[in-house]
């Protein structure tokens, strides 16, 4: 039984073509595992679970890292093992898939709403006009990032990097609050 997650197309929910209850229950268990750096978004919603497969001794879970140096990777792997063990009683083998490289395009729509609710502006679509707007002056990009608190687009980038590898720092000129922007990747 093999269920590869859809590639490069928005959300990666449990596939609809289940042939038995077991893979679906594993997917559900994985949906309870969160990224420790954005603990309100599950790793399934984030698009880093690329496959769930039953093998002879247990389960093979294929994960892809968001960024090469993401320090959360190890913790996520341990949490995945624990979640699979809890729901199936079997061991999980973790396989890391680098290709195709993770993209913010794989973040589920529901997770984008959760990001915004948590004060993090969700990423623009990769390759969109907003995400690839040319720089006019260095440090000032014509990217209308919407403030997740007040909705204003009068915002500016403070720094290219933020609290984690996947975010940049912005500030709203209307409500004056600084906020994180999830970088299109």
């Amino acid at each position, binding site marked *: 039984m093999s269920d590869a997650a859809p590639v490069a197309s928005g959300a990666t929910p449990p596939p609809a073509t289940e042939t038995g209850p077991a893979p679906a229950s594993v997917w559900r268990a994985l949906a309870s595992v969160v990224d420790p750096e954005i603990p309100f978004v599950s790793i399934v919603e984030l698009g880093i679970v690329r496959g769930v497969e039953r093998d002879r001794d247990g389960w093979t879970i294929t994960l892809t890292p968001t960024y*090469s*140096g993401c320090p959360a990777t190890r913790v996520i792997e341990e949490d995945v093992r624990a979640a699979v063990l809890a729901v199936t009683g079997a061991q999980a083998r973790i396989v890391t898939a680098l290709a195709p490289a993770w993209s913010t395009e794989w973040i589920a729509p529901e997770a984008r709403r959760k990001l915004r609710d948590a004060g993090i502006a969700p990423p623009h679509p990769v390759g969109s006009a907003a995400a690839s707007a040319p720089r006019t002056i*260095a440090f000032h990009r014509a990217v209308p990032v919407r403030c997740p608190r007040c909705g204003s687009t009068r915002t500016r980038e*403070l*720094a290219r*990097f933020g609290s984690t590898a996947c975010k940049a*720092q912005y500030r709203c000129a209307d409500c004056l609050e600084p906020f994180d922007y999830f970088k299109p*990747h």
Partner: protein
Amino acid sequence: MNANAQLFDYVLRLADNGLVLAQRLGEWVGKGPVLEEDIASTNVGLDLLGQARLWLAYAGEIEGREAPPGRTEDELAFLRDSGAFRNLLIVEQPNGHYGDTIARQFLFDQWHVLVLAELAGSRDARIAGIAAKAEKEARYHIERSTDWLVRLGDGTAESRARMQCAIDALWMYTGEMFAVDAAERALIDAGIAADVAALEGPWTAAVRSAFAEATLDVPADGWMQGARARGGKQGVHTEHLSRLLAEMQILPRSWPEARW
């Protein structure tokens, strides 16, 4: 060198660039010029370190094909002496002031993106996968280092003079980026390695364009580290590397088998 040894050596070249530059960027932790740059430097370093781990893990597997099980990524990072490192000389140069760090990063980033884009089409699927992932990260790094090059170059008279001085001092090391030795040539011919000699034109064009925006002068022609001189890619390093390694490796060397 047989084909396996050549591939091992080549992947080490890719790994050590990231590993050594990440260590240098890590030296800014807690003392960046502003908090945001402290964070940015270390985030770039973190990306490079993550990439280096992927390359080192693969290098160990390649080594294991002939001498199983092959060294682990930690053994390769912490238990090699400077003569066994294969990074470009530019990445081991000291941080200096922030303009020096930005100059080094800018010149490297411009090269790194071109190389990774080439390697994403490598016939070696593992190399292609790591490179495609790393390229996305490097494309982001280049925006920041270019921003700072322009800000400091097209800044005050003082910042411009310092930026120019930084570029002039590092310029001779850029020759090595495009020098191809026999081992690398064999892998280029096999469709595995990036033909860096062919990337010099695009690199020069990109660098000149950014220099123009930054009001910086292209350094005058002078001696360049390159094809006729053995350098970092052959394990012949500046004295800076051994000092860097002394700090980076002291814990596992002093307490072998130490566990976190």
